[in-house]
């Protein structure tokens, strides 16, 4: 499990155990990964997060321009695996859950326990996260060194 916000770890663990899903990602609405748990090594996590956020953003926008309202959840059922996508609000902003499940679970189970996960996250979320100094003053030298090593120049 990898989490950016420690308070999401326990609810995420419970969700995966109870729903028997293969993996779950929590991302921001712009596709940055907040947490990942499950068989994430089998998945290009960052691409999945970017695509999931794009799908949710475009579906919400489509809902807005057709006056049909925002979509609460989306699902895709493939022959062996399914994908469940849902957006929800926490004090940190709008997050998206992306769940991959297979024959060990079902869309119904995933939805049921995802609702519970959202409830737990909403209850546990700290209201404020203080801004903190992030980078040292000499970061430009380190950035230059990193870019040189990255691009071989």
């Amino acid at each position, binding site marked *: 499990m990898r989490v*950016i916000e420690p308070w999401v770890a326990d609810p995420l663990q419970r969700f995966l155990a109870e729903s028997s899903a293969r993996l779950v990602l929590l991302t921001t*609405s712009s596709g940055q990964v907040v947490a990942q748990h499950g068989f994430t090594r089998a998945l290009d996590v960052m691409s999945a997060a970017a695509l999931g956020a794009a799908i949710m953003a475009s579906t919400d926008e489509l809902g807005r321009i057709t006056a049909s309202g925002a979509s609460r959840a989306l699902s895709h059922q493939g022959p062996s695996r399914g994908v469940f996508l849902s957006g929800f609000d926490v004090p940190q902003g709008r997050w998206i859950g992306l769940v991959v499940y297979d024959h060990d679970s079902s869309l119904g189970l995933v939805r049921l326990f995802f609702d519970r996960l959202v409830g737990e996250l909403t209850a546990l979320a700290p209201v404020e996260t203080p801004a903190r100094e992030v980078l040292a003053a000499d970061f430009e030298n380190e950035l230059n060194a990193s870019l040189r090593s990255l691009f071989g120049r």
Partner: protein
Amino acid sequence: MSLVNFTTREITCKIVYYGPGRSGKTTNLQYIYGRVPEGRRGRMVSLATQSDRTLFFDFLPIDLGSISGFTTRFQLYTVPGQVYYNATRKLVLQGADGVVFVADSQARRYDDNVESLQNLQENLLAQGVDIRQLPLVYQYNKQDLPGDLILNPDELDDALNFRGVRSFGADCLHGQGVFETLKAISELVLQRLAAGSPTA
């Protein structure tokens, strides 16, 4: 908005390449993808039409390495440049930490560049972002074309660079100016982060 993980000391930033259709936004990412060592980049995702025009976005995650003790990752996105796709441009622009405006240096594309820049300003404003506050650099692509077909960087600065920010002449197909542009926007984004902007 930048995502900072204080526990694992990771920073993730989103940079969007913006500009008119066929100005070279996707080419920037393709060149970066081709030059960055495999272990330092993820898969490049391109959602394109059958004729290879960007339909939704291109996406390329790269690992900048350790900056001030933080593992720093940049997620590079392009937007579809064609006027028709403004709805998707708005979506991709959400949460951007910095923007690279890729202009087409050809004189005949002058109006397209101006229109795209105005569109960027409008789309940012719709999200409550003032273009004067956002890290921004300009890249004037296709400077390799014959001189009588293009405007030089000074002329393009006069037309587009109202903030007087850093700008780069470029030939993205062959890589000239690509890394310089990426380096400049990276510096601006990280400087802003270091200045204590709120983090998610």
